[in-house]
């Protein structure tokens, strides 16, 4: 059985500085609060850097420091390049940044890296074949990460339009594949894609 002992034995990654955040949440918001109600914080005060083993860390100047941060998109489909959320190890919010370009260049770069780490989405460059069988699609594609075949179901949540020409495919294992612009694919690929459009 898992008891409290186990929990306390687990590594506490989030710095002690993080603790007050929970408490302040229930107290009235004062003007000095770094974390505004919308979670945003002055981006100039946010700094991302890498610690040992390349673990991402985050400090908010004069407020707190998170020993292990991750960066996610708040709107992964509708806003790919805006509204990024820095979270701590336990998925507690550290801050929300509307435009990552407002970060200092190094933090900006690390944020981009961290986002790439968090979203394992391959970009399809060529489609060798798509076979439709009983509304199950067997796909064989070349991506920026190499060749891959996958199976997907034909459904509204597996074939997602990200833009007028931008498409995302989600396979049965929830692997994701992106086609940034279907018009830029070669003729053969477009023909194969026709099977599912």
């Amino acid at each position, binding site marked *: *059985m*898992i*008891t*409290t002992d*186990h*929990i306390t034995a*687990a*590594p*506490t*990654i989030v710095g002690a500085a993080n603790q007050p955040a929970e408490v302040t949440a229930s107290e009235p918001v004062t003007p000095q609060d770094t974390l505004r109600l919308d979670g945003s914080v002055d981006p100039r005060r946010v700094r991302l850097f890498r*610690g*040992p*083993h*390349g*673990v991402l860390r985050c400090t908010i100047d004069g407020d707190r420091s998170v*020993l*292990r941060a991750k960066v996610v998109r708040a709107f*992964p489909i509708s806003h790919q390049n805006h509204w990024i959320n820095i979270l701590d190890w*336990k998925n507690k919010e550290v801050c929300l940044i509307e435009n990552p370009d407002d970060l200092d260049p190094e933090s900006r770069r690390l944020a981009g890296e961290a986002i790439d*780490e*968090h*979203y*394992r*989405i*391959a970009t399809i460059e060529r489609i*060798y*074949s798509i076979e*439709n*069988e*009983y*509304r*199950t699609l*067997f796909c*064989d594609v*070349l*991506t*920026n*990460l*190499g*060749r*891959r*075949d*996958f*199976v997907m*179901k*034909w459904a*509204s949540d597996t074939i997602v339009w990200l833009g007028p020409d931008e498409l995302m495919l989600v*396979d*049965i*294992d*929830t*692997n*994701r594949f992106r086609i940034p612009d279907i018009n830029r694919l070669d003729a053969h690929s477009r023909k194969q894609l*026709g*099977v599912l459009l």
Partner: protein
Amino acid sequence: MPIADPLSPAAEQRWRHLAQPDEEVLLTVASDIAAGGHYGERWLVITNKRVVVLPDGRVPSPPGADGRRNGAAGSTGSRPAEGGGTHGSPNGHVAEAPEAREARDAPAAGTAEGVVALAIEELTEAKTEPVVGGGRLEVYTGNIPVPLLEYSSSLGPKFSEVARGLQQVIKGNPFLVSDDIPKLRCERCGRLLPEKNMTCSRCVRKSAMLARLAGYMRPVMGLSLLLAVATGGRTLVQLAPPYLQKLIIDSVLTPPVPGGTLKPHYGDFGMLALLVLGIAAAGLGTTLLMMIGSWLAAIVGTRITFEIRGALYRALERLPLTFHNKREHGALMSLVTRDTDMLNYFLVEGMPYLVTNSLLLVAILAILLSMNWRLALLILIPAPLVIAGGGFIWRRMRVYWNRWSQSWALFSAHLGESLAGIRVSKAFHQEDAEIGRFDRRNEDLAQVTIREGRFWGGSFAVLNFITGMGAYIAWLAGGREVIAGTMTLGEIVAFVGYLWLLYGPLQWFNNIYQWMSRAFAGAERIFEVIDTPREAFGSGNAAHIERIRGEVEFRDVTFGYDKAKPVLKDVSLHVEPGEMIGLVGKSGAGKSTFVNLICRFYEPDHGEVLIDGHNVKDISLECLREQVGVVLQEPFLFNGTIAENIRYARPEAAEREVVVAARAANAHEFIVGKPDGYDTQVGEKGSRLSVGEKQRISIARAILRDPRILILDEATASVDTETEKAIQEALARLVKGRTTFAIAHRLSTLRNANRLVVFDEGCIVEVGTHKELIERHGRYWKLVEMQSEVNKLRTVDG
């Protein structure tokens, strides 16, 4: 499917350099992401002393080589397909290119490159960190996380198990990992499987759709045979008129040529009348046989769809919740209603046409060839074009129909949902937005229909013209023969008559394509559902426990709706028969998930849930669900009366029992207060009752079942405290002797609990009585502190 993957030759070589003499290898597994994030392999070697990550082949490897190498990995057969085989060459079984093999077998420059090795004794924890579309295996040295390797979502289940195994080694426990890893590829042909562990559709000799539909014909075999006879007869009768026309022209109407053949019937009106009568009789016969045929077809077709619709609904009821979780109800409804209708329509109307016209086609071809084979061959010149055109249309139409069904499904799903949610729309004044959404779906549907119609009409017109070419040829070439005297006038008239009969079917075929593709697209979707493995309902050698004592045990249970993201993590709990357990914890902590596993709505990914010492998987579902009563978090009532809804648990229950159950749920008073008492109609989904009333009826329903294990998931959350207290007192009496799990956010609800179990992020963090937990000053204490009722509880407990 075993979890271990044998090392590739390159990794093997690396490992030989790295292995320490007294080291025992516990597990080697392959991930499908190479060091640079590209698809490729990396190996994890877990030994009793170290955990080592080995790159495979060249590092980093160009994308092209990855694909080839990994495709080959799936084909070697010696290695489980999922190792490198989740990606790769077109079918996963293409021979390995020589240069790729060389690259793999050649010793990599600098063995240490890309190798990570960590001593087990330095590690404190191993876990997986899910990311979108994959995951990362991580170990901790002290507080510092060390990422070991990445994998795609396909290997999520495998690496959660690996992490669990590694954790055991770190904690010094025996290394035990499950070999029950879902199979991703067909072991025979290497093709990816659309459902884990399913048999490969390509390897199972897939009988054609028609053969499968014919299977459903068995109950109406006799009628089907009759139908075949009627259809055949009609075909024969249809063949007569052109021949009779030929006789009229050649024997009766055409004057004999001097020196030609004798014409005994020339100008014979009696003969003419007889022949015309023959044509009329053929017409009448066709009509009669057609009537009989459609009548029989209606019966046969409807019967078949009846069978299929039944099979489909049975499948839907028996499919596990994991299936229903993924589907929209509207789409499933359209499957049962519209797609089966489509199939019916085709079987009743289209199928007889198809059969008659196929027969006609063969018969006419035979007649034409025997009449004048040269001319017959000439007029057949456009036929390949017509057939090819038909084939083209057929394929395109299939796509259109699929799209059409998709739009239909979305349309009806939206319709159903928006009507069900009409209160919310009104409350937020979103009627216009909903109307907008509806219009868009409606527009989509219209667009698809229009596009399909346009394509259909256009291609059909072209095809029609091509078909007409046969007649031009017949008149031209046949006319020349008549002029030359090698063919009679009657013959050419009959020829053209048969020609239209011949090309008629070809046109009909195109028409039928439309139906058939539509019907078959539906049938495909239907069979997809029917073929999905269902819940093992009391099957096999499942134990039947007459009377469950109520001992429940969770042993290291891990479960996630998505296997790579566990919602319950290594949960263990032992509950004695008759105990009342209160489950508390934050929203989303996994309480409902925990009780779902007791009902076996879902099955643990690993670990076991035991009832009376039997794994729930081995208890027949029937007897399990009969003796486990649940009040779900969202009360759901069926359209019908209150009594019917309470009786849902046990339809044969007497009125007295219904009343007793309702009383215990403190529902009796409000029920009899209604003008129609127990016969009050609750409305669709119980919409005419308040939420608290619905909850009490669901409690009554659960109580009526007289379950040995009672599960109350926020069962009284919407009931005022006073009523709740009354319910609890009644329950306390009823609960005696049966095991109860009660989930509540309002902690006072759980004052009768023997023990409280505190959940946090999928783990049990505290177990004990209210008093113990308060004294411990832990999570529970914090929860209690936060609730305003804390003082009241203290006085209750003394």
